[in-house]
């Protein structure tokens, strides 16, 4: 062995040892996260591991705490108000977000880290977490509205689920499906259930017909023609056509509604994509052989095929150490917007991703036993062909509250006119200080 070789070997060892020493010296950055869904926390941790593999020099150590939904938002708000006690990152649910935009700025804008991905994602998905032109949060999913059917109840009266393309088709079929099966004079099977104390049954049509709570300019559009049309449509399904009824217990997450579904009393309803997880979780896969999902019927050719429902945006709070902001923001984009992350959002969490290019990935195109062995993403992809955007604003939480307490109840149960319930809601909002 020549001298040269020994020296170079020594050098290599020295460099190796040196860099090892450097790696030891560079400790992972600690980041804390609050979530209200445990699986969100686990997901973010697995994304942190992926980040550390890709960026060993800028490693992070993410710890999360799961707190009950209501309490987490209350605690977060209180902590941000008093100026201490908040985590670095936090999940904020869509209907709670606007509450955090009312006082001083509480979150860091994420525009810069989102910019590189804007072309790849359904950008309007950022709208609910946007205020004053700043994107403050990134969601876990798209939450596309889809139709959930019980094919057995359709087949009994000879209706093919694939034939239901427009609402006219749907209503015609609904008149067949809705019936008294045992002849006691009471209707046993309804084509559809609608929420009266939940927001989704109304919000879907409102958004897809061009209405909603706010428009792109941040103006309250509660009394718009589109909303009147949407609520009239909903009321007609129940009272004019008689093919729909209020969900037992008022919304689609009550134990009673799950029983209704399992007992075959409801042939269909629409909810966001994430409702798919309820079939194994709450209904013991009892409907595995008859449940399918399809895009929602359309009002007219070329209209919106879906919209977005629910959601949770991860934000960076103002109480993070300022030195960590850049790293946390980059990590957040990495964990929510990269291709791999969007595949993982489906494989880990069962959510529909907001990046369009992953919809052809093999990982998504799998058959599911819980949905009659079909490949759900074939239909989800079809559904998201044109997704109506949802805009929010300062009074979005109040609007949701009014919708789910009195507005839809008055519309469906008390049969008040859409104009009346919407103007009542608008009046109440103005009394709360909304200016529109």
């Amino acid at each position, binding site marked *: 062995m020549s001298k040269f070789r020994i020296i170079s070997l020594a050098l290599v060892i020295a460099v190796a040892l040196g860099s090892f020493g450097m790696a030891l010296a560079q400790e992972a950055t600690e980041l804390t996260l609050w979530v209200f869904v445990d699986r969100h926390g686990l997901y973010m941790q697995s994304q942190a591991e992926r980040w550390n593999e890709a960026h060993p020099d800028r490693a992070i150590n993410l710890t999360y705490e*799961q*707190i*009950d*939904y209501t309490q987490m938002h209350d*605690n977060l708000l209180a*902590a941000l108000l008093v100026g201490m006690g908040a985590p670095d990152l936090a999940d904020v649910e869509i209907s709670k977000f606007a509450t955090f935009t009312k006082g001083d700025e509480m979150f860091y804008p994420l525009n810069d880290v989102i910019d590189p991905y804007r072309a790849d994602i359904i950008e309007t998905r950022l709208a609910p977490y946007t205020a004053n032109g700043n994107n403050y949060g990134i969601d876990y999913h798209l939450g596309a509205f889809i139709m959930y059917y019980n094919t057995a109840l359709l087949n009994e009266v000879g209706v093919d689920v694939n034939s239901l393309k427009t609402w006219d088709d749907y209503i015609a079929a609904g008149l067949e499906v809705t019936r008294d099966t045992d002849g006691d004079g009471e209707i046993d099977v309804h084509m559809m259930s609608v929420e009266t104390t939940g927001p989704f049954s109304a919000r879907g049509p409102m958004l897809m017909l061009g209405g909603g709570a706010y428009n792109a300019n941040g103006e309250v559009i509660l009394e718009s023609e589109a909303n009147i049309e949407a609520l009239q449509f909903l009321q007609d399904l129940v009272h004019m056509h008689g093919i729909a009824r209020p969900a037992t217990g008022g919304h689609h997450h009550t134990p009673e509604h799950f*029983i209704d579904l*399992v007992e075959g009393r409801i042939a269909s309803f629409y909810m966001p994509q994430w409702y798919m997880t309820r079939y194994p*979780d709450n209904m013991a896969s009892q409907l595995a052989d008859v449940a399918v999902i399809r895009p929602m019927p359309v009002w007219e050719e070329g209209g919106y095929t879906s919209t977005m429902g629910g959601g949770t945006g991860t934000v960076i709070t103002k109480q993070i150490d300022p030195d960590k902001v850049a790293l946390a923001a980059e990590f957040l984009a990495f964990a929510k917007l990269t291709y791999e992350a969007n595949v993982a959002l489906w494989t880990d969490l069962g959510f529909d991703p907001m990046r369009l290019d992953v919809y052809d990935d093999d990982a998504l195109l799998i058959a599911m036993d819980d949905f009659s062995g079909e490949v759900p993403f074939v239909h989800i992809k079809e559904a998201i062909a044109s997704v109506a955007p949802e805009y929010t604003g300062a009074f979005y939480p109040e609007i949701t509250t009014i919708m789910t307490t009195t507005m839809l109840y008055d519309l469906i149960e008390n049969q008040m006119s859409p104009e009346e319930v919407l103007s009542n809601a608008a009046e109440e909002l103005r009394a709360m200080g909304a200016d529109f």
Partner: protein
Amino acid sequence: MTQYVNPGKLGARRQSRLTKWLMLILFIFLAVVFIFPLYWMVISSLRPDGRIFVDAMEIIPSALSLDTYRRLFDEEPYLTWFINSITQTGGFALTGVFLCTTGGYALAKFRFRYRNLLFVLILVSQMIPFHLLIVSLFLMIIQMGMAETYQGAIIPLAASPIGIFFMRQYMLAIDDEMLNAARVDGATEYQIFWHIALPNARPAIATLLILFCIEYWNNLLWPLIVFRNPDNFPLAVGIKRLIDQYRQQYDLTMAGSTLATVPVIILFFFLRRQIMEGLATTGTGVK
């Protein structure tokens, strides 16, 4: 229980067997109605995986399984929550009883200026809606370094207006002459409290201990504010956590609650005489 006669007892001698049977039937019916939700909680926790709603209307279950309990211990830090609950509940009950016993004694047995005003103020404070105080309390807990600590969970609630009211009522019933006799014998007020008042108040103290235990064991709101780390959760908070917006583990909730309810019921069963005598001798009697 105790020797006393009330109108029923006098009348009882004249009562026919029929009345006794009717009473028995009435109370069996009432007991069934009151126990039914608890029974349902227990059978729901024993339903096979995922069948909690599917089989909800089966009053007599056709299939039973301990799977849910196994999952409860495998997937959740249930044992930790359980131990936390016992420690926190014990700490809370002892602290609360100490504060309320000494305070109640002072309110009942000493005359001092503003005593009644103070008493009314304390009672009135019970009427203040808790949610009004959340923001201020949360701020205080953080500033005092009491977040995530047992002190933070225990102390702020321990000055219970109902508790001091209860002890005051009890202490009022203690014979003043007994205390005065001790004073004449030269005992200090603290000796009198320790040697006379406390032993006499034993049933009330036991009762209050148990009432405090029950209160904390099922308390949801306050521990949720103090604790965020699941390793510190008491049972009620841990169980509440099993149901969230995206995953509603009603089955685990039922199993967790069954196990959480059992100790309280056992405790109550063993101490029911004590509780009833405590309540009885206190009389909750306002003079």
